[in-house]
């Protein structure tokens, strides 16, 4: 799918050509897991939402019903959410589609917003693979009914649970071609992505032409089954939050060294909110090591950095903010941002990058590519 084809498709519709594509936006379940009740089969509703419904002495001591795994350990002093994004009824930011339309789409001039569910980042930490898969499916049904049907500018990431790759592949086959779906969101667990455990997921995503998207998992380093952080356990939120990029470095290295992109040549990986400043080190170090060590991984036929730049896409937020703008330009050039970087706001999180001011900081030759061109190339006619 080329840029030109999508532009042509747009000419048939009432809208002008797509310009600004926001590739990391978070809808939230207004009542947490309970919101998914109507979207779960009755047996899973009983299993996941049974037990005590109200806070009681028992819930203060032991869990008596499941909560979606999230960061319950590191406390963000700013509060994690943009403070002007709370709906009037006080519910969680990102839970009211109409407010998101007003603030982000109309307010920010965003033509398409790719929705990645904020409550399901951590389902890779669940210990029960069947529960994780049931939650993923229920979330996907909710996303379709409440969000994708609400505004034609919304697009969705279909979440799959990583614990059982066969169940995940079945979910991609069930819903991967539903209207509005543009990618598969794969929450991570403590198995690196080069591992053949995941290959049924990659095969299904490739079959449907869907990129696989990663995002910080909210639970990294906190739960036993979650992706662990390097070196030890951080103490402060600022330490933990800064260290989250380690997980993406480890997985990019793993994907490349296992030859995943040789095995699945159509596969694209999107790293949302993972940053880019670590990428030069990973690429240069891998390339240098590979020159001497390729004998160990002979299926890595090209320079590792070439696979990364061909197959991995990165979202802008949080864009590095060096005090000298030429340093940002140099960084963008090293990572071939005119091809690999896609704009994202991370609305409604506290470290949101507004479209206007963020895009204005990008150097001119690549600005329009990052604003929307690269995303159109990545998602093709699914954006039309």
């Amino acid at each position, binding site marked *: 799918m080329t840029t030109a084809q999508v532009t042509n498709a747009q000419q048939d519709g009432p809208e002008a050509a797509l310009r600004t594509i926001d590739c990391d936006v978070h809808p939230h379940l207004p009542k947490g897991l309970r919101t998914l009740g109507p979207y779960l089969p009755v047996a899973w509703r009983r299993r996941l939402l049974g037990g005590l419904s109200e806070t009681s002495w028992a819930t203060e001591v032991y869990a008596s019903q499941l909560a979606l795994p999230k960061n319950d350990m590191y406390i963000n*002093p*700013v*509060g994690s959410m*943009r*403070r*002007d994004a709370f709906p009037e009824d006080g519910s969680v930011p990102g839970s009211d589609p109409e407010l998101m339309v007003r603030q982000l789409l109309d307010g920010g001039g965003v033509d398409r917003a790719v929705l990645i569910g904020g409550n399901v980042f951590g389902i890779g930490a669940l210990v029960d693979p069947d529960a994780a898969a049931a939650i993923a499916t229920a979330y996907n049904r909710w996303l379709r009914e409440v969000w994708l049907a609400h505004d034609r500018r919304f697009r969705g990431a279909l979440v799959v649970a990583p614990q059982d790759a066969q169940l995940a592949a079945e979910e991609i086959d069930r819903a991967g071609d539903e209207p509005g779906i543009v990618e598969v969101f794969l929450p991570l667990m403590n198995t690196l992505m080069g591992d053949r455990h995941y290959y049924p997921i990659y095969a299904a995503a490739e079959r449907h032409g869907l990129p696989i998207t990663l995002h910080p998992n909210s639970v990294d380093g906190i739960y036993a089954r979650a992706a662990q952080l390097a070196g030890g356990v951080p103490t402060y939120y600022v330490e933990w939050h800064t260290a989250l990029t380690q997980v993406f470095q480890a997985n990019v290295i793993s994907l490349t060294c296992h030859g995943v992109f040789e095995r699945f040549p159509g596969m694209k990986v999107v790293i949302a909110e993972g940053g880019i400043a670590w990428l030069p080190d990973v690429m240069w170090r891998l390339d240098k090591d590979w020159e001497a060590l390729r004998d160990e991984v002979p299926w890595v036929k090209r320079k590792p950095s070439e696979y990364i730049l061909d197959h991995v896409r990165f979202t802008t937020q949080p864009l590095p903010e060096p*005090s000298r703008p030429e340093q940002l330009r140099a960084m963008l050039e090293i990572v071939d941002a005119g091809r690999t970087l896609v704009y994202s706001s991370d609305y409604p999180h*506290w*470290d*949101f*990058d*507004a479209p206007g*001011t963020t895009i204005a900081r990008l150097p001119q030759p690549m600005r329009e590519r990052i604003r929307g061109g690269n995303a159109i190339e990545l998602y093709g006619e699914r954006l039309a």
Partner: protein
Amino acid sequence: MSVTAPHVVCAADELPPGARRIVEIDGRSIGVFNVDGDLFAINNACPHRGAPLCEGTIEGTMLPSEPHSYVYGLHNRMIRCPWHGWEIELATGRPRFNDRPGRARVYPVAVQDGQVVVRL
């Protein structure tokens, strides 16, 4: 720069302690605050990314301190930006504890003849 004509924001009793008003003066959005009896007027744009600063919360902050100790201070002297959490000092418009350049403009504000008056 000459001081321009005073702009009346509201009657003084319409801005009691704890209240704020975000007003448009000469095309600029300005937040006027009564914090525990002290008046502040500050430009409604964060020096970081231009967010509506004056919709933020009035807070104190943790003062620079020895490692592994917390010292709370500047109670209600800071406003925290609603987007990225930058802490801006109400009196100066500066992000007091980071070394970024730039600040939000602040304006003289006082009660005159029972009215809250801002001068640009």
